[in-house]
């Protein structure tokens, strides 16, 4: 028999309330009651995968012979550069991830203009040193410059300022992070090739006290003031850099072009209508399936059936909340994994109820039957669910190390679903059933349990 029924019910109510709150919100915010400032906030908008809302997925592979190993750091830098370039296009929710040791997966949900993204990813980054005169451009500003790789004049919209590019990253010879001898701030030391050294020397002599913007792919990384003329091709950029910032900056200077050449080995574009169609149809199908399941459970298992349905609804609410909270992207394979774990959750209930009925038929009292039903069904629920978790962990590892997003999405929802279903089937169902039995005190087992 269950002790602490009240405590159990309170816990369930709290969990369900939290889950429903997250399910129904786009953003979770906790306000300080006195100052009304946000103490905590988290965006919990649902994320739909490419197959459900349309979009672009590309798989990039290092264009280097397969037997050659690639420095993981270089892959990470390449990832960052791809991320920055695509961010600069104003694409929302793009996710760029390293998969395995030589691949990068890029996902752009909801994207329609796929051509520009594909072109941007493949281009080599363009580093420019731009004269902005007395204007200080904040890092992140997009500048129009007069440099064009083809030599054709740059088209400028009316009223837009065009800045002069002194030279490009092609003139940079080496970049190292160092420390200022006076105040031990981190600085970036760079050396230029001979031609660059001359251009730079002339420019800095003529423009001391002006700003010199360092621009990657038309986006300002930093805009230091020219303190002294830099002659001889050895220069230093100082600022209030932390070590990380200095390193990141040096990487951008060094790798204006990608550290690893990348080629597109896989492209998937899903039109928005196809995505929406798949989403609608799976939602309709899911609802119809759910209604049949509910009817069956209630007709066949009676009172426990109602409890099981409640428990499944709670399961769905918690699972959805967890997906939203951790920003998991919902895809069709993800829905398949979720459906399988819903089946598992139902199965756990069915296992327990069948066991209870068996015990009741053997003449046990209701309380005995409940206890026995749970203890005896537990070993099969535990072992079968553990096997499912083992499988999904292996598949998840496989999926993420290989850029196989299908497998990854499937195994993640399956594993989470199974874990949540363990809680709902064993804890929630049991508590609710005890509560119902205590409230209704059924005598006629045939009617209440469908014996």
């Amino acid at each position, binding site marked *: 028999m269950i002790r602490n029924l009240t405590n159990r019910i309170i816990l369930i109510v709290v969990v369900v309330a939290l889950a429903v709150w997250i399910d129904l919100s786009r953003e979770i915010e906790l306000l300080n009651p006195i100052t009304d400032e946000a103490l905590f906030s988290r965006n919990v908008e649902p994320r739909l995968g490419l197959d459900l809302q349309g979009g672009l997925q590309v798989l990039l592979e290092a264009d280097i012979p397969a037997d050659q190993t690639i420095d993981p750091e270089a892959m990470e830098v390449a990832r960052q550069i791809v991320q920055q370039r695509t961010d600069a296009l104003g694409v929302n929710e793009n996710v760029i991830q390293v998969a395995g040791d030589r691949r990068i997966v890029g996902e752009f949900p909801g994207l329609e203009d796929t051509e520009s993204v594909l072109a941007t990813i493949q281009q080599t980054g363009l580093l420019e040193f731009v004269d902005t005169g007395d204007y200080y451009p904040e890092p992140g500003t997009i500048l129009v410059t007069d440099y064009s790789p083809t030599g054709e004049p740059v088209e400028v919209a009316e009223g837009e300022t065009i800045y002069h590019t002194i030279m490009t990253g092609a003139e940079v010879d080496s970049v190292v992070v160092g420390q200022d001898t006076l105040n031990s701030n981190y600085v970036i030391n760079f050396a230029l090739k001979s031609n660059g050294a001359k251009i730079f020397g002339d420019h800095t002599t003529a423009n001391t006290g002006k700003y010199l913007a360092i621009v990657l792919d038309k986006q300002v990384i930093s805009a230091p003031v020219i303190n002294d003329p830099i002659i001889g091709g050895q220069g230093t950029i100082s600022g209030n850099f932390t070590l990380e910032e200095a390193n990141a900056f040096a990487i951008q200077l060094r790798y204006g072009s990608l550290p690893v050449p990348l080629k597109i080995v896989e492209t998937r574009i899903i039109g928005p209508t196809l995505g929406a169609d798949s989403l609608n*149809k799976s939602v309709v199908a899911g609802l119809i399936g759910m209604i*049949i399941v509910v009817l069956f459970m209630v007709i066949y298992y009676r009172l426990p059936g109602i409890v099981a349905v409640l428990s499944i609804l709670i399961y769905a609410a918690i699972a959805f909340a967890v997906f939203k909270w951790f920003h998991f992207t919902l895809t069709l394979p993800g829905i*398949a994994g979720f*459906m399988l774990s819903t089946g598992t959750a139902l199965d756990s209930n069915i296992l327990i109820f*069948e066991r209870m009925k068996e015990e009741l038929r053997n003449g046990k009292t209701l309380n005995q039957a409940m206890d026995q039903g749970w203890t005896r069904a537990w070993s099969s629920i535990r072992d079968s669910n553990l*096997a499912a978790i083992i499988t999904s962990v292996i598949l998840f590892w*496989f999926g993420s190390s290989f850029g196989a997003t299908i497998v990854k999405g499937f195994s993640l929802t399956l594993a989470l679903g199974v874990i949540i279903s363990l809680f709902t089937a064993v804890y929630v169902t049991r508590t609710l059933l005890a509560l119902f039995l205590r409230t209704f005190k059924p005598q006629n087992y045939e009617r209440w349990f469908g014996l």
Partner: protein
Amino acid sequence: MNILGKRYYFFAFSLILIVSGLTLLGINGVPLSIDFTGGSLLELQFENGKTPDTATIVSIYEKSNIDDAQVTATEIGSVIIRSSFLTNEVRDEVLTTLRESSGGDITVVRFDSVGPSIGAQVTQRAAIAIAVASILVVLFIIWSFRKVENAFRYGVCAILAMVHDIAIIFSITGIGAYFFNWQIDSLFLTALLTVIGFSMQDTIVVFDRIRENSNILRRLEYEKLVNHSIVQTLQRSINTQLMTVEFLLLALALFGGVTLQEFAIVLLVGLLSGTYSSIFVAAPILVLWEKREWQTWFGRGASA
């Protein structure tokens, strides 16, 4: 109810189903989609009445040096063009020419382009992942059944049931490929994974009952013990299977889109097989193993 007594009928049933489907696969070749072979799939929606005929599309592809384009019309009026790997440049070139020649706007419904090496590697790695997962599950079952005699057998039989279900899935795909032009694509991989997960879970539930009963009913003959356990879990198997999982899927098969239907049917059959194999394949093989029945298969004829 004596289920195990008829075990050779069930084996024969499974065998016929698997062999017929796999034979179809063997004769017609495995219908791998570009997800596995590499290549491109371009689905286009033309403006009303402006869909060019197949020959025009093929010749436009040929102009861009792609000479293996295959055109299929879909139920919703769009056109699917399959070909070898298209780079994004070639795709844009083809699209521009198509736009000019059809004189109307074109919507790209879907575009998949997979490099030749990727597909093969994904398949290979997926197979390795499934194998690793299977071995771990066998080890887990052996550990979990350690108090029962011959725990090793339970692990092996669970995997045999899983292999059976995988074979059934390929068999149904072979039949579908023959009659409805199905293809093995990445959604198929999802269905396969789902069935594998379910198959293991379901077998373990049945085995769990055998484990429990073998502690209580020590004196009972093994075959009777297993049969008794199957009958006890039968109600649960039918309910879980038919009434819950299948209904969810049936709805998907009936109401889902064209791409989802194939997926849903494969899942439907696979999950049915997952339940079937626990009762009619895994458990009977346990008994067969216990009795070492293969010694009577040749010479004296089957003793079923």
